[in-house]
């Protein structure tokens, strides 16, 4: 009879399970350890039956991701192809507020300036941005086929919970990979919120890690009336005057400074050339109403300058030299979703923060800088 068992064991999908084990182990362990569990006073309960099916949901998000990848989505607005190809961050940039890295810890200190509407561009702000422009302009453009980006997003998901997840992407203009939902960590604004979540059976608030390879997909980013592909972003003007002319021609509605701010959020984290990023900082410096605050911490605890729009809802954190975008934060009211034919605009929720951990050109998919 043992021979039967041996024969059946040849059907066991060991190669598949080994592959998944290696891929998912770290994230699965991290995800568990990030969930605090009270180890005392456990309730008793029948073992196999108390894992209610409710706890598992294939979230619409996953489905949507697939749909997007298949769709060749044009991501609206300053988008960064984060994780879910623009799903979460595509606003990619559309989110990241400067507050605490861990909402529960209360250790963070960065707050957007509490003076919305103040029509002051301080000399400081301008000179800081201009200095940053100088720094960026000196960086030579590196070579590499794939644009790599890693972000950590902190997003409120309702009921006092905030989910943090890391997403990576590689893209060469046609093909690439996204690795989403890594190191998922859930925090609660209050102990009461956490208790309420537990009382509901501690439902999963976010899907697990996911890797997707894609090909024959053109992603583009809309900046006003213009649509930019990866290559087109690399070809933007490197001169402030020319870039401003381009921005004015792309500008459709709303105040121009706010539009410039949006464009800056995208361009400063995009594969645009160092010269273009420098030009972007110069154009931004020339806008009335932006407010600068020194020594703010981004969601990952990195120090930088916060540049906030006049109305106070959107903040960019740029590193000390002004050369690198560290984070974006949104503190305005929750936005409502809008979708177009082939474009996706993900609404920002109040409290959204995106930290740009790393980006740059790499030679191969899967290679980090």
């Amino acid at each position, binding site marked *: 009879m043992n021979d039967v068992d041996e024969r059946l*064991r040849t059907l066991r999908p060991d190669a*598949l399970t080994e592959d998944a084990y290696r891929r*998912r*182990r770290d994230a699965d362990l991290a995800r*568990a350890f990030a969930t605090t569990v009270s180890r005392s006073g456990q309730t008793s309960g029948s073992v*196999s039956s108390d894992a209610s*099916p409710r706890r598992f949901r294939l979230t619409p998000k996953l489905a949507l991701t697939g749909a997007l990848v298949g769709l060749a989505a044009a991501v609206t607005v300053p988008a960064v192809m984060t994780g879910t190809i623009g799903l979460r961050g595509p606003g990619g940039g559309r989110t990241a507020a400067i507050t605490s890295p861990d909402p529960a810890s209360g250790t963070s200190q960065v707050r957007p300036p509490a003076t919305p509407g103040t029509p002051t561009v301080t000399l400081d702000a301008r000179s800081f941005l201009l200095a940053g422009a100088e720094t960026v302009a000196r960086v030579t453009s590196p070579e590499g086929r794939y644009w790599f980006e890693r972000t950590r997003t902190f997003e409120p998901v309702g009921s006092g919970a905030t989910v943090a997840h890391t997403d990576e992407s590689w893209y060469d203009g046609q093909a690439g990979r996204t690795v989403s939902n890594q190191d998922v960590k859930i925090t609660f604004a209050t102990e009461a919120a956490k208790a309420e979540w537990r009382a509901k059976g501690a439902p999963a608030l976010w899907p697990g890690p996911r890797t997707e390879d894609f090909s024959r997909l053109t992603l583009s980013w809309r900046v006003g009336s213009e649509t930019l592909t990866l290559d087109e972003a690399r070809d933007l003007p490197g001169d402030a005057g020319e870039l401003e002319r381009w921005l004015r021609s792309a500008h459709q509605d709303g105040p121009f400074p706010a539009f410039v701010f949006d464009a800056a959020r995208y361009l400063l984290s995009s594969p645009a050339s160092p010269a273009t990023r420098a030009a972007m900082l110069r154009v931004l410096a020339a806008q009335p109403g932006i407010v600068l605050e020194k020594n703010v911490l981004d969601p990952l605890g990195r120090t930088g300058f916060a540049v906030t729009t006049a109305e106070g809802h959107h903040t960019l954190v740029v590193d000390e030299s002004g050369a690198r975008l560290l984070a974006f934060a949104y503190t305005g009211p929750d936005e409502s979703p809008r979708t177009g034919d082939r474009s996706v605009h993900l609404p920002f929720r109040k409290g959204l923060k995106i930290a740009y951990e790393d980006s740059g050109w790499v030679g191969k998919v899967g290679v980090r800088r």
Partner: protein
Amino acid sequence: MIGGPGKALLGVDDPEARFTALYDQHYRSVLGYTLLRAERQAAEDIASETFLIAWRQLEELPEPPLPWLLGVARNLLRGQRRSGLRRRALVERLAELSSEGDVTERVAEQVAEREAALAALAGLSELDAEAVILASWYGLAPADAAKLAGCSARAFTVRLYRARRRLSQALDLTPTTTLQEQS
């Protein structure tokens, strides 16, 4: 890989070390089970979710923990089926898995063996096929396997016996009696 020095160093009372050992030892088995009932991505998500639930209930895990883990996975799979994912016949699914599993070239003999095993399984009822797979892949005790299969231990034992006998015959594994004609 399993526990090992790390576990000794951290001490058995360290929940994180215990959970890591649990994961290292059983993740592949749990996924092997969920792959039978769900597409690859969903199967992986369910296996991960199973361990997240195990983490929350680490203090209550029975020994051995595998039947419990498989039970949690089964419940999660049920929820998923209700949400409309197509359920496929077990043998059909196994055939898919065995073809997508290896990227490397397989030895012809192995391929032939798998195909013979699949063909033999196809001749069994779904329940009988499940019974032999649970016993063969995981070495579950009849009582545990029965809980998972949703029947009594006795019914399971009967099912298993019947299935093994049929498989043996189909695979031509029964001890052959050689008849010699005397001339």
